[in-house]
């Protein structure tokens, strides 16, 4: 006799299927489900029908792979926290200890190091995929907008993480980075001081970057990701843009295992790659931060290189303009995109203006990244 008199929620009806499957496990599952509702909720979650065109399609695995990559990053990041010491005197030594003495420390830190780049690449590719498939169009605007914020959060992780080893690389990149914020007209110097926690780069800067890296951004990321994935579930997969996809769209497959299998296999491949890279060459550690050095020529992490390198081509007078206008233009157009491109047309080759603008941005970023390196 079931303790629930009437099936009320759609999830609870699924419960009956448990009883048809035989044996202990079914009874156990029923017991848990009647008390928590989690078994049937999980079953409904996994059996979500998705259009067949997502199956065995790498482009549709980019979001899932980004998620896997983020899990690796949280995992390795939390491991690092067991040894990392966020103080100006000790940070360098703790990272040195992690890299050269702690058992498997080289692996944990190198995975965090290489995977940081992997995340940036994967998020960017996923962004391009959803852009070229017009997945931002109504009613999926909020999926896209939450994605844009996730993208900014990822870059924030990269910027704040770079300083944490308190070596020459991180120190000078952060000095230049905060000075760039300082060039913003009117608000600049206040902004730079707020980032640094004072007039100069020091302990307070390290604390600020550390808290942002390990508490604020992870919290923000989890919230935004929940919104992003909920939106994705709520609206379902966006329509396909290819003829072949339209034929396959007539059939659906369950999310688990048909879609998930690709993410899991690619995730395994990514982990293998990260371990190989770490084994091949462990994450670098420059000399300890030295503000009195004249020979050190700072370079930011490669994904900020294009912005840094653009500065070479702008006369000093125009620089504040560049520093404000370029990011505002790029980020602003990403935010506005779903409200500007509101037509029915989803195929990128049929809406040349939007496509051309995007390709222009991508080309500028790629060209200046290469020129800068």
């Amino acid at each position: 006799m079931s303790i629930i008199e009437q099936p009320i929620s759609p999830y609870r009806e699924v419960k009956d299927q448990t009883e048809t499957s035989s044996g202990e496990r079914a009874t156990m599952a029923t017991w848990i489900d009647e008390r928590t509702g989690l078994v049937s909720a999980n079953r409904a979650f996994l059996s979500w029908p998705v259009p067949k065109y997502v199956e065995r399609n790498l482009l549709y695995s980019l979001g899932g792979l980004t998620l896997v990559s983020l899990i690796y990053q949280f995992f390795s990041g939390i491991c690092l926290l067991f040894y990392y010491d966020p103080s100006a005197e000790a940070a360098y030594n703790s990272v040195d200890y992690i890299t050269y003495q702690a058992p498997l420390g080289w692996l944990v830190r190198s995975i965090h190091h290489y995977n940081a780049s992997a995340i940036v690449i994967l998020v960017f590719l996923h962004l391009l995929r959803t852009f070229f498939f017009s997945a931002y169009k109504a009613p999926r605007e909020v999926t896209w907008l939450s994605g844009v914020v996730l993208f900014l959060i990822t870059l924030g992780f990269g910027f704040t993480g770079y300083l944490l080893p308190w070596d020459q690389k991180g120190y000078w990149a952060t000095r230049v980075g905060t000075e760039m914020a300082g060039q913003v007209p009117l608000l600049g110097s206040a902004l730079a001081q707020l980032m640094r926690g004072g007039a100069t780069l020091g302990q307070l800067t390290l604390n600020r970057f550390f808290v942002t890296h390990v508490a604020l951004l992870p919290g923000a990321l989890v919230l935004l990701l929940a919104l992003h994935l909920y939106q994705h579930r709520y609206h379902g997969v966006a329509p396909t843009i290819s003829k072949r996809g339209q034929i396959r769209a007539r059939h659906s497959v369950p999310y688990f295992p048909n879609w998930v299998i690709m993410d899991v296999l690619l995730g395994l491949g990514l982990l293998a790659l990260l371990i190989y890279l770490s084994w091949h060459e462990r994450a670098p550690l420059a000399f300890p931060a030295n503000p009195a050095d004249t020979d050190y020529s700072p370079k930011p992490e490669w994904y900020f290189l294009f912005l840094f390198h653009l500065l070479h081509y702008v006369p000093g007078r125009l620089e504040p303009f560049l520093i404000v206008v370029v990011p505002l233009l790029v980020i602003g157009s990403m935010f506005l995109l779903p409200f500007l491109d509101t037509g029915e047309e989803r195929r990128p080759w049929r809406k040349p203006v939007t496509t051309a603008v995007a390709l222009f941005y991508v080309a500028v970023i790629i060209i200046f990244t290469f020129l800068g390196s």
Partner: protein
Amino acid sequence: MDEQKFPLNNVSEPKPPEMGRRRFLETGVWATTSVVGLTLFGTGGRFIVGDALKDKDEQWINLGEIASLSAGQMHQTAYSLRHKDAWRTVEEKGLLYVFSDDGTTYTVFSAVCTHLGCNVHWEEARDGFSCPCHDASFSRTGEVLGGPPRQALTQLEAKIEDGVLLVLV
């Protein structure tokens, strides 16, 4: 929710006096939450900003006997000083350039490039400074000769006491 146990649909159409009471309670919830929220964010915000917007504490440092700083030549001097960084006393390092025409008045430049904060080099051959970051060049007197900076190198206040050069950093 189980409609048998929680007949919510009875509540959704309140009579006028009931309506006023519900509005009042709703407003109460929002008002209380706002007060709590503002208190938390106000306190947290002020706390996090801390002393970040304060100017740097300046202090005089000793660059040594002027006798050792020969005139007509650019001297590169690294300094380090004990400096209070919030709750810690830390060693703060920095780099200066010292120059004198005649051995009586001294010009001291901070090595920090006025563009984005890299340290500039002295280049004897060119009789000027250059910055490695975005190829800026400055004259011996700190004027911008080329590149992105918009301000001359920062000149620091200097004085001589008992034959010792002191600089305010």
